[in-house]
């Protein structure tokens, strides 16, 4: 086995994917080649070194990590409440809806002479209606101690 092949196999061996015969051949090469043996040592050290590095961080944060489920549960509850609460958009959506309704009402509300005539029957008691072909005529009682009012509304 030459050095180039050996270097290619070092990582595969480290990942446990090198067949036994090739591993034995590599071991034979490393035993007789200090440069490749050194490379093997350095490459093989990257994994443990990285695990050591993350291990230090884990030791530093162990108490917080112990409380992870408490943190997650709190976050889940918060998310659940947020989902139940109407969103900002839903909370203020009535404003544009109201504006749209107002605009529609203004657009379609009958203007000027097209408006329905004011009629006494909408708010008062007509004491007597007088028949007429050209107008709505009514005698309206506005209440006790108040004079009767005569409504004469010309029909369109």
């Amino acid at each position: 086995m030459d050095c180039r092949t050996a270097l290619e196999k070092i990582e595969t061996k480290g990942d446990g994917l090198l067949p036994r015969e090739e591993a034995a051949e590599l071991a034979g090469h490393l035993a007789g080649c200090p440069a490749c043996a050194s490379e093997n040592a350095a490459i093989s050290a990257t994994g443990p070194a990285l695990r050591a590095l993350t291990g230090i961080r884990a030791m530093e944060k162990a108490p917080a990590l112990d409380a992870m489920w408490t943190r997650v549960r709190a976050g889940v509850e918060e998310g659940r409440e947020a989902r139940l609460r109407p969103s900002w958009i839903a909370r203020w959506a009535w404003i544009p809806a109201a504006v749209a309704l107002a605009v529609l009402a203004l657009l379609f509300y009958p203007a000027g002479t097209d408006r329905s005539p004011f009629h006494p029957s909408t708010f008062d008691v007509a004491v007597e209606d007088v028949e007429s072909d050209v107008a709505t005529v009514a005698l309206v009682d506005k209440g006790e101690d108040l004079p009767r009012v005569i409504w004469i509304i010309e029909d369109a």
Partner: protein
Amino acid sequence: MNEREKGGVPDDALIRTTLAGDDGAFGELVERYKGRAFAVAVGIVGDGDDALDVVQDSFIKAYYKLKEFRFGSNFYTWFYRLLVNQAIDRWRKSARSAEVPFDESWLSEDVSPADSFAYPRTPEDLARDRELGDALQRAVDSLPEYHRAVIVLREVDGMAYDEIAKVLGCSVGTVMSRLHYARGKLKESLKSHREG
């Protein structure tokens, strides 16, 4: 790899129980995977507090996405996809994520001689040599984010190539080349510290 193999309650069963309304079952999943998830997250984001936030946010996201989980697939592969994406997002937003140019020379097979320096193998070893720890962290930080994710999933979590490919949504070949690049970078960091 997962708890089913260790003889505990299978992940699938805990997921079904959670979906049926028992949050305690999800708590068991959190307890089961929080350590591994933290190791992966801290390997990617570098900072312990950021990693805690990433783990917490990933579990919360997983809880609300649980109904999308496809039974029959591995929970931890599914969960790690959320976790790694969350960690990479966090890394991009952090001040540590300065642009680092991709150095093709790391892909070469050149060999440099080394002596009999004893490499750190445990957190205690590394804690004794703070400079080396800092140098190693700098080397990890200088890796492009997906290279960092690959080496962390492989070396810290022990995932197989095909599992890493599933988590990252790339080919096994891409995983292997990224792993080779990342190992080269870390190896040089260890060597230059020893020689310096």
